[in-house]
């Protein structure tokens, strides 16, 4: 661990919007970062670590875009080795870094690239060579051995390569970045949308914001603005009067009801639809499809029946057990793919990082766009954007994010279950060294809210007190409450009540929150509503509408809109 600097031990605090807006707007910032996804929070952290005065603005909540809607795969880069060597190199380097700095978010599973009888085994050789060239430790193994180390794999496989893929939790990774950015003085405004830019003499001098909760608008001034809004970034650029040639690509995924595989399973062929199966905590995720979609539609994407069919058919090819495994839910995200400036048609889009200095490119000073890339490479994207920002601001401090441990990862997680306190073990897996902040001495703090995911009242208190949790969706992201096999059938009501007490919310607001949460859970189940999932859906309706009458507490207007 030499060369690794431990983060200073400071209080954890994720508070955002409840602070007086005046505190934010009176000041001149060095940098405003637009976008609360992993790229945005990573960039805000890097800027703050270099001593800049930073404000991050997000129109909804953290991780609401692609960050919260992907595989949760810590790529080894193998997938891109043949087709996109540049991305492959970026991936493996970042992979090794994240395993250290964010180890509490990573499950080091390793991955397999399997060749099935219908695939060309010659591709394997090419694949392994390309991996080695990118610096990825890819090792051809005996298919029989592959079956031993991953019993869920299709037994008909004729080839297997072992690679350092892993599983990573995007919510935890984002949270750790936010906590650390705050420790370095960064400020955050969620539910604040950029509705305009303050442009003076060819220079962006700030943004105009609308508070989505109050409807108020305000202006914030800064020396630099960094556009890190993912697929929404092209709309932000357009608002600033410049063009970013973006081709948003929709990717749909399915979550299965238990962890069928222990290693990431990929197909050893040219990247195609639905050929990655990732184990994530207690479940596994198959994905993705890939379809370009018009920018106007990215706020309203839905999983189609055809996508579901593709995902199931392809998934069964990799792990036949999926055929008899319940599908928990379906979801879809959108990748911010960007065409290089010399490729307006978007034919040869790379997954590489795109950093645009709009001053040199478009003659618009004070504005930077960081886009393209992947969740995997967020740290490097942040580094590149911050390097450019520092250059413009005349700051010479170098980037330290590759060696500074994120909050939660300061100590090694021994991964040894304690049979007498399994909950604590599970929570350690979720929060790493931050687990010490979870109260568990008192009996009421050990009471179980969500049994599938072992979320205790104490963990809810931690999420409320330290992670600024005031609704069930945030609680879900921070603790996995409601993400397990029962999909929040019973725990949602329990959690809503506990949250209402702990966070001292208005009861009416809490009731609405519960209704919204149940509606949102069903939306993800609806595209795969058959078999066990339909049963659970019926059970959910029976309990929340039939038994409780929760539907009567949903305002009529809202119901019509849905």
């Amino acid at each position: 661990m030499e060369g690794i600097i431990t983060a200073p031990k400071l209080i954890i605090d994720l508070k955002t919007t409840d602070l007086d807006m005046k505190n934010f707007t009176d000041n001149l910032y060095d940098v405003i970062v637009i976008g609360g996804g992993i790229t945005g929070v990573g960039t805000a952290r890097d800027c703050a670590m270099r001593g800049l005065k930073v404000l991050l603005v997000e129109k909804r909540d953290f991780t609401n875009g692609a960050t919260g809607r992907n595989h949760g795969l810590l790529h080894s880069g193998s997938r891109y080795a043949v087709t996109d060597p540049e991305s492959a190199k970026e991936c493996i380097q970042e992979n090794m870094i994240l395993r250290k700095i964010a180890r509490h978010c990573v499950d080091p599973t390793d991955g397999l690239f399997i060749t099935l009888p219908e695939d060309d085994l010659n591709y394997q050789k090419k694949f392994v060579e390309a991996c080695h060239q990118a610096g990825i430790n890819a090792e051809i193994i005996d298919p029989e051995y592959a079956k031993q180390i991953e019993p869920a794999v299709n037994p008909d496989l004729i080839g297997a390569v072992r690679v350092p893929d892993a599983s990573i939790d995007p919510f935890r990774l984002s949270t750790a970045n936010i906590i650390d950015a705050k420790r370095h003085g960064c400020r955050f405004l969620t539910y604040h949308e950029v509705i305009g830019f303050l442009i003076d003499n060819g220079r962006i001098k700030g943004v105009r914001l609308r508070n989505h909760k109050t409807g108020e608008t305000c202006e914030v001034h800064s020396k630099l603005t960094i556009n890190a809004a993912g697929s929404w970034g092209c709309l932000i650029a357009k608002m600033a009067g410049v063009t970013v040639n973006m081709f948003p690509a929709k990717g749909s995924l399915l979550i299965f009801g238990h962890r069928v595989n222990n290693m990431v399973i990929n197909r050893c062929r040219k990247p195609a639809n639905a050929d990655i199966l990732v184990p994530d905590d207690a479940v596994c995720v198959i994905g993705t499809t890939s379809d370009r979609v018009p920018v106007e539609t990215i706020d309203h994407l839905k999983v189609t029946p055809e996508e579901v069919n593709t995902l199931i058919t392809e998934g069964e090819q990799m792990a036949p057990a999926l055929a008899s495994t319940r599908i928990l839910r379906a979801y879809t995200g959108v990748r911010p793919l960007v065409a290089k400036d010399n490729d307006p048609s978007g034919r040869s889009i790379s997954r590489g990082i795109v950093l645009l200095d709009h001053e040199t490119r478009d003659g618009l000073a004070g504005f930077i766009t960081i886009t393209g890339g992947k969740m995997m490479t967020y740290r490097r994207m942040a580094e590149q954007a911050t390097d450019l920002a520092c250059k413009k601001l005349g700051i010479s401090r170098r980037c330290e994010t590759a060696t500074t441990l994120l909050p939660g990862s300061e100590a090694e997680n021994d991964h040894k279950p304690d049979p007498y306190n399994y909950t604590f073990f599970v929570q350690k897996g979720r929060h790493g060294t931050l687990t010490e902040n979870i109260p568990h001495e008192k009996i009421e703090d050990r009471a179980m809210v969500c049994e599938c995911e072992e979320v205790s009242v104490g963990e809810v208190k931690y999420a409320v007190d330290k992670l600024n949790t005031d609704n069930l969706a945030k609680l879900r992201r921070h603790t996995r409450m409601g993400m397990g096999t029962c999909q929040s059938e019973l725990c949602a009501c329990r959690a809503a009540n506990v949250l209402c007490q702990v966070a001292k919310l208005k009861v009416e607001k809490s009731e609405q929150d519960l209704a919204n949460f149940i509606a949102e859970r069903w939306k993800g189940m609806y595209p795969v509503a058959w078999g066990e999932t339909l049963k659970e859906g019926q059970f959910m309706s029976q309990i929340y509408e039939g038994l409780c009458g929760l539907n009567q507490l949903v305002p009529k207007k809202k119901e019509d809109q849905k």
Partner: protein
Amino acid sequence: MKYDTIIIGGGLSGLACGISLASKGQKVMIAAAGQSSLHFNSGSFDLLGYDEQGNVIDNPLEAVKQLGPEHPYSKIGAAQLNILANQAQELLNTAGIRVKGQTGRNHFRLSPIGVAKPTWLTIENMISLETPDQFPQQEVIVANIRGFLDFPVEFLIDNLEKKGIKALLKTFTTPELEYARENPSEMRATNIAKVLDDETNIKKIADEINHISQAQDLVILPAVLGIANLSAVNLLRKYVHAQITFAATMPPSVPGVLIQTRLRQYFQSMGGMFLEQNKVVRGDFSDDKLNSVYTENLQDEPLQASDFVLATGSFFSGDLNTNYKKVFETLFDLDVDGSEDRTQWAEENIFKAQPYMKYGVRTGSDFTVRKNGKKVNNLYAAGLVLNGHNTVKSADGEGVSLLTGLQVAENILKK
């Protein structure tokens, strides 16, 4: 082994049907696979609570006349429904399930989150309201067991206060309950009921409740007492000075388990054979008849009967099922109603009427089922496995279960 009637399914409809048949001297067997929907019962029996537009129904006997022909009640007919409803109420009372309410006029039950819902019969110990806002007392104490999270008191009190009731939250506990809390998963309604099913423990909680209330108070408690019988509830009433009543909790439902137990005991007391945890897995058909069935644990033993009743419940009970191609009935592959187009099964908004709720086994007016388009003369369907009704939207679950169970019994006896 030969029976007069074999009933597949040990929930409300199967038991009602079995009791009715056994009381007329039939040799009846019920084969139950596991838990039934009674495990999330509200402590009430709904007959018909809402019309198609979602309006509250005052008189279900009048409102049934407006139902479409596919609804099970329409197959029974309004006049007969009234007779069966009275019969059902008597059956419950005789089985030791004391209920209040009348068939021609709905009253209201109080849901775990404090919403008033129209219902037909409510277990005597449970709180009930004449109208949604008419409450027995203007001031109440909501008393919860410390650490019991399945009684959402915040919501309950908020909704009581919206009705103009002053509700005060108090909590209590005893060393036994605290001990149970050491294991966090022990704090579920049915587990607590087991802990409290003991006179010494009841005395202790009575003392605690007496500490937090006075004789003139009305105390609302979560329905976590009386899982095997009502002696715990009666004892508590004896020892507590204040007036007490119970409100429904989140599942598992203690009143539901009691209903199930009482009905099963009543059935058995009349000589009925109740086969527990024994799922029927196949049947032998010939021509237009089902001859025998086989269970999981008795694979080589044909269980024969003159008549059979399928009372296996809706999707969540497992016999009625879907895969990503079709809707089907698992056990006998009977004809079901349900769209062939998967995209038509559900609505994206969970609070809209879900089309799949009305899917179920197709029957004739006498509730005999169809297989490959042909009537099976001695196989009837009863309860939530039937097509043509939406339990969640209409609030008709217990009514459909009880009344179709009784009607099928009558149809069998008529033959």
